[in-house]
């Protein structure tokens, strides 16, 4: 096996990506060839230096930061739509500050829809005003004025 072919495979050997047969062959060659051994050793040091440069120690503080960062939106987790008004806001991409305004608007809409159907609203103002008024004088408060002749009980022919 020539050196160039061996060097092509040295890195694959480091990466544990060589089939067993080829791996054994390269290892055998490295035992005999100082030049290839030096190349392999240099890469091993480079790799070690890279790992040392970018190696980070475990940080529980970092874990805490990530988990705190998730807190405002835990129900927006993965594949599950948030429910209620927040879900609506999320789906429509509405800004969060619109939430109170939406709430007030919904309350006003509910009031308009529900208020005319309540028992209290079914008693007309006219009925309340006429409750204490004698029957014969009620025409004065009626929404529509009655026929004048009928009220006065006067026939036109008598005038």
């Amino acid at each position, binding site marked *: 096996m020539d050196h160039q072919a061996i060097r092509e495979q040295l890195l694959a050997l480091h990466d544990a990506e060589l089939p067993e047969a080829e791996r054994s062959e390269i290892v055998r060659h490295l035992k005999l060839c100082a030049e290839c051994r030096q190349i392999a050793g240099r890469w091993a*040091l480079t790799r070690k230096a890279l*790992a040392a440069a*970018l190696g980070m120690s475990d940080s*529980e503080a970092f874990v805490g930061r*990530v988990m705190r*960062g998730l807190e405002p939106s835990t129900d927006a987790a993965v*594949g599950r739509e948030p429910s209620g008004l927040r879900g609506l806001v999320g789906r429509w991409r509405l800004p969060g500050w619109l939430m109170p305004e939406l709430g007030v608007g919904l309350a006003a809409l509910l009031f308009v829809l529900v208020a005319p159907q309540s028992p209290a609203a079914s008693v007309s103002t006219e009925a309340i005003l006429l409750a204490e008024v004698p029957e014969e004088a009620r025409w004065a408060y009626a929404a529509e004025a009655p026929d004048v002749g009928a009220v006065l009980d006067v026939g036109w022919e008598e005038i």
Partner: protein
Amino acid sequence: MSDDADIIQRILAGDHQAYAELVRKYEASVRGHCLGMLPNPSDADDAAQEVFIKAYHALGSFRGDAAFSTWLYRIAANHCRDLLRRSSRHQTESWDALLEQQGDRIEALLSTPPDVEIPTEQTELMRRVLACLPEQYRTILILREVDGLSYQELAETLACSLDSVKGRLKRARQELADRLRHISRAPSV
């Protein structure tokens, strides 16, 4: 430690706190990934935090075809690339300046015996050399050397063929080796 798939099932079932187990398991490598990719080391932890938050919100779309770690590193790689492209202040250190100043230290770094711990200032120097590489070489080197992805996982993460992975990895290593060789031969000021 629970299997990643079990933890993900618990999170999807509503146990949000289970996500801390995944963060704990992968935080060091994701932070290392961001440290290697971003020019400013102080941005690394913020970027890593954003990666984990992105992954959390996308967890419902994780199908389990690949390992969770591969999926997470893909998010990390894409996030760092986006940050680099968005940053108008993205500046890499002058290679020439590094070459002039650090030759001896690089040589010392690459002569460290295998059983000796590499001094902090030399690891910082290595990070600066890495930062001088093109972004795509940095990405594949970090995914392979720091995150430990196999060739197949690299192909999935970078959305390319196995042959492309082998070719790109070879070129990236060659580029790094050339720069290290170059810098170690340069006369220090």
